[in-house]
């Protein structure tokens, strides 16, 4: 797979803040690539720099090997799905979808009509074409925004937290659809999110950003299982910490009897035990005062608050952080 997008030491500094500091990464053709991080980490800035909506302080942006950092937004073959979708309220769904086709180099593509028909069918917008955006539901608006961008066959589709405007029930369903869509159209997605679950679920690779810098780059599994820092470990899921060692709640075990063959056994007191459907959530306090959470299989027997138990885990389940 070739590289479609390359960022080289890309920086965006404001007088009071380094929104983005020397970010370098490559995105491969057809990849679902996520920029993940807390608010203010520089993920949206990165997206806007690639789109051309902001200018970098320094660094390069290469799109299919060509430097584009000095080009105007209309002159870059990337397209953005905005967080609020930014559909044109004075145009119908059809006119929104056709908006960009007029402006592409060399005029309207010859296969424009075919592209529209395909996307409209794929995104189930057939009966909505003559509606105004304000008559659509959140999910429908998002599909129109996707169609409007995808119809241009961008080299990279930029998505700025496109699921955050949807209500939680819809979000999971749309998430599945988005992944299926990306596979189907084969276009490279650069996806911005602050939701680690979303990033893990959707991404081929994730770039975890923190305070304008790249924290870690890797597949979801790599980052989850081998986080490079406390920040990375904590941002992608919960971690129990004991003397600098991290253990995921699902690797944390509880037993009433002294477990054999493990050196990691600690006397604890159960504080809370809640059945959450897919797992049993137990909170316990270690004798040293550390607060631990264990997620046990849902068929495990329950514990009583105040009960004395052993908290333990296997050595190979510890998160190894480089020091």
């Amino acid at each position: 797979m070739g590289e479609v997008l390359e960022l080289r030491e890309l920086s965006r500094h404001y007088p009071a803040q380094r929104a983005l500091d020397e970010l370098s990464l490559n995105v491969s053709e057809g990849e679902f690539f996520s920029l993940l991080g807390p608010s203010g980490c520089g993920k949206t800035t990165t997206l806007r720099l690639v789109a051309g909506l902001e200018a970098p302080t320094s660094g390069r942006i290469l799109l299919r090997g060509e430097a584009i950092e000095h080009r105007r937004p209309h002159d870059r073959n990337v397209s953005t799905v905005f967080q609020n979708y930014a559909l044109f309220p004075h145009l119908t769904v059809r006119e929104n979808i056709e908006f960009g086709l007029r402006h592409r180099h060399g005029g309207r593509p010859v296969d424009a009509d075919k592209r529209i028909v395909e996307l409209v069918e794929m995104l189930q917008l057939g009966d909505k074409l003559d509606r105004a955006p304000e008559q659509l539901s959140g999910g429908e608006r998002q599909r129109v925004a996707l169609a409007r961008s995808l119809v241009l066959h961008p080299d990279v589709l930029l998505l700025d937290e496109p699921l955050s405007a949807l209500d939680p029930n819809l979000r999971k369903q749309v998430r599945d659809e988005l992944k299926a869509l990306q596979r189907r159209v084969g276009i490279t997605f650069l996806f911005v999110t602050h939701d680690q679950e979303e990033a893990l679920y959707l991404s081929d690779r994730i770039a975890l950003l923190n305070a304008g810098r790249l924290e870690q780059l890797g597949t979801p599994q790599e980052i989850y299982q081998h986080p490079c820092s406390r920040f990375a470990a904590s941002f992608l899921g919960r971690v129990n910490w004991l003397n600098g060692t991290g253990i995921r709640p699902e690797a944390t075990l509880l037993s009433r009897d002294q477990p054999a063959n493990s050196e990691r056994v600690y006397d604890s007191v159960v504080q809370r035990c809640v059945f959450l459907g897919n797992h049993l959530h137990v909170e316990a306090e270690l004798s040293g005062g550390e607060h631990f959470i264990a997620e046990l299989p849902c068929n495990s027997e329950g514990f009583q608050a105040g009960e004395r138990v052993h908290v333990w885990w296997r050595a190979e389940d510890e998160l190894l952080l480089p020091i």
Partner: protein
Amino acid sequence: MQPAVKQPGDQGAGDASQTANSGLRTLFLTPTAALLLALLGAPLAIVLAYTFRTRGTYGGVTAPWTLENWQRLADSLYAGILFNSFAVAAVSTAICLLLGFPLALFISRAGRRRGLYLHLVILPFWTSFLVRTYAWMFLLRDTGLINTVLFKLGLISQPLPLLYNYGAVLLGLVYTYLPFMVLPVYATLERMDRTLLEAAADLGARPLQVLWRVVLPLSKPGLWAGSILVFIPCLGAFLIPDLLGGGKTILVGTLVQNQFTASRDWPFGSALSMALMGVVLLLMLPLTRKSASL
């Protein structure tokens, strides 16, 4: 209990709060409504009544009742004046649109200086309208500032006819009413979602295309509101046509004024102004509805 039957308790509570609300509303609205009725409705009724009376020798109205004033309106002379007035108002509005939209756009994108520029736009209101119009006369007349300077510079040997023509009237109208265009247009531009402009650029539209296909259509409510605010006073203007147009440019506003002063024909003046108001209302009805719905 049937499900269709309303809960008596709810209904009662709703009624009580509604009654209290409407009582409060009546209390607050009564003075304003009474004032409007007295100061707007009553004079209007008097003017309407005057249109059916006969002129008095020294102004005022006398008996008998007549339809003559309305019949005189059909005279082609007045139709011509009315047409001229509409044309002048329409051209003034068009010029205000052409000047006001770019100005409002500029101000809306001026960042921290927006406040300053807005103040500059409304600064002329701090001086009397009459004084400002006389200032224009001082600038434009044959021995005025502009002609004097051009003459001294040797650029002209005869004074340019700057005053007492339609051009001067248009200038005065545009100068006076431009802020009424700029402010509502600015308000819509200011409210506009910036991500829409970013989205347009992102979809490949060049800056001018963004302006034409997104900014302009979305500014429509402000453009309509501004046009109405400029067109109506321009149509009825009498001071500017009188002072800057001299006697030559008879517009309907001036004509009405003349009926009440020089001609001492109050009934006909009343008929003229009622007719003008009727035409304006008819014209504006669909427009105001449109600007409200946008």
